[in-house]
């Protein structure tokens, strides 16, 4: 699904990622953990195509193609979905419209006809229930006036409708209380499928209590410094990131 080889990324003159490598197979759930400033968000931004980052060397191959060649919207149409750490408010553009436009763009890209309006409504309402959201959120402007938790639910709602192949969750657990975390986690869990991979970026282990990863990577100083199963997350929680950093040094 996704293969990152020796990726080096700078912001301005400052190197952030310094030789990161990562392989994700279809259907796998990977977690990337690491201390603040390790480069976690940079990784999610580079994968989704945000400007302001320079790839100085390395490759990112997604479904056999060079992902870095594509514009952000092309990546999205190819099935890469980023759930934002800080979802952006778009006043004046309705939430349901954006979801429909995005879904139709993907369908067009696949050579399919536009989604039927009634079918779409049924689909959306179904997913809204899953995420325990009020239907009124559909008709409000994208994220405008949503609370932190509502914004995160809305991100997962979009993922549920767009059915991406690669779902990148950037600190999806941050700012959520325990009840909201359970709902969001259940939403993510329901999306797990044999042809869908997840890259969960998180600072804390608690999200992983609800969504069990296949592989946990520890990112420190721009590189993957440790790799393990779900137990690694628990170990990190107990011993702190300092423990890994010491091991590397």
């Amino acid at each position, binding site marked *: 699904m996704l293969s990152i080889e020796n990726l080096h990324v700078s912001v301005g003159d400052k190197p952030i990622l310094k030789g990161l490598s990562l392989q994700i197979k279809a259907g796998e759930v990977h977690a990337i953990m690491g201390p603040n400033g390790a480069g976690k968000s940079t990784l999610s931004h580079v994968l*989704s*195509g*945000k*400007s302001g980052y320079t790839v100085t060397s390395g490759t990112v191959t997604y479904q056999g193609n060079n992902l870095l060649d594509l*514009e*952000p*919207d092309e*990546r*999205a*149409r190819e099935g890469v*979905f*980023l759930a*934002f750490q800080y*979802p*952006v408010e*778009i*006043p*004046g*553009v*309705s939430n349901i*419209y*954006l*979801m429909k*436009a*995005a879904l139709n*763009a*993907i369908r067009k890209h696949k050579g399919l006809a536009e989604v039927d309006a009634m079918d779409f409504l049924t689909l959306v309402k179904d997913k809204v229930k899953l995420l325990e959201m009020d239907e009124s959120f559909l008709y409000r*402007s*994208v994220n405008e006036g949503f609370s932190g938790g509502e914004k995160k639910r809305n991100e997962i709602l*979009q993922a549920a409708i*767009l059915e991406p192949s690669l779902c990148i969750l950037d600190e999806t657990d941050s700012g959520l209380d325990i009840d909201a975390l359970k709902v969001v986690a259940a939403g993510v869990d329901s999306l797990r499928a044999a042809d869908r991979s997840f890259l969960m970026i998180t600072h804390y282990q608690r999200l992983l209590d609800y969504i069990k990863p296949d592989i946990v990577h520890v990112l420190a100083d721009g590189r993957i410094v440790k790799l393990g199963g779900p137990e690694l997350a628990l170990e990190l929680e107990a011993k702190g990131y300092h423990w890994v950093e010491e091991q590397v040094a």
Partner: protein
Amino acid sequence: MSAEQIISQYPAEYKKIADALPGQSIAWLALLRQDSVQQFSAHGFPSLREEEWRYTNVSAIEKKLFSPASSSEIGAIEIDSLNQYLIQDAWSVVLVDGHFSASLSKLDGIPEIVTVMSMSAALEQCADLLEKYFSQSVDSKEHGFVAFNTAWFSDGLFIHVPAKQVLAKPIQILHVVTQAGFMANTRDIIALEESAEVTVVETFVGCDEAYCSAAIMEVSLAQNADLTLYKLQMEGEKAYHFGGIYVKQDRDSRFTHHNFAFGGLLARNDIHTDLGQASECDLNGLYLGVKRQHIDNHTRINHLQPHAISHELYKGVLNQRAKGVFQGRVLVAEQAQKTDSMMNNRNLLLSDDAEADTKPQLEIYADDVKCAHGVTVGQLDEQSIFYLQSRCVDKQTARNMLTFAFANEMVEKIKLPELHDMVLAQLLQRFPQAGIQQDWL
């Protein structure tokens, strides 16, 4: 010929029509016109040296002589060609080249005690009533256009609504200029007695050639009266537009203004209101500039008595080489305690050559007030563009969507469905980019 020579030609040119101007036999008006002629002859049109005009150079109209159309010269117009601008569910008054057209207007069914008639008819039939309002909200010393307008207005509209009357339908005033080189110079008066309520729509359109449209409106709102006024300015692209709306608000009255400035090569609006005790004004504006358009909106809110509320939001979208000007002045007099005032101006620049000059001015002489103002001039937010892109929307469409959403906030405030759709259509038409879709909303 130099600009000064042309300026001196204006009085000469307009002297030719003096005899035909309405109300010449009315002593108070004749005197007022005379004073205004003198005022204009001495000072001319406003210059950049005047603080209130420093961003807007009107010298172009001094380089060319715009002539008045006599009532016999006005262009022939079929009502069919105007239907696209007319709200069907409204009473309408059509002014062609500055003259009232009875055949194009539709006033049947207005309650008898309500007066809606052309200014020329009002001067014949109810000059005494008019005198109570004429030149009361603004006088000829305000600036050159007011003097010019008072001296030579050819017609206009008079609306008088007696106490407690609430009109069931809006009244629309459609200004049309049909020929190159014409100047339409009109005067409107709207007077609402105690607790009266009405909605008025002003629409300005014209031909593709250079012409000038100058419209001064005076509004008088008695206690608890309520006026909602929409202005839809979609003059031809070579036109000069000068509009002034001067409002006097008695206690507890409400004035809501929606100002859509879309057309004209050079367009200037002055909106002034004097707020009485516990009165409210809500000023909304949207200006869209393309090519070399220059659009200036100048508002002045005078809090003269305690407990009044003023809210103002003006938004501008400027593309290509267009220039937008916003000057917003709020004055809070010493006795106007408990004033609540909020003023905002937001500008979106879509090109490197577009320009926005914005100048909020607060003068506060009272000590127990709540006054806020905010101004922004910026480009589309990169974070928002990226967010939309990450949701499959291509970059250009994302830009269009955000621009459209920014402007549409002001369109959404329109409470008349027909007018809403008309303005929305204008908004869509004035964004040349492909792929703008109504269902984004």
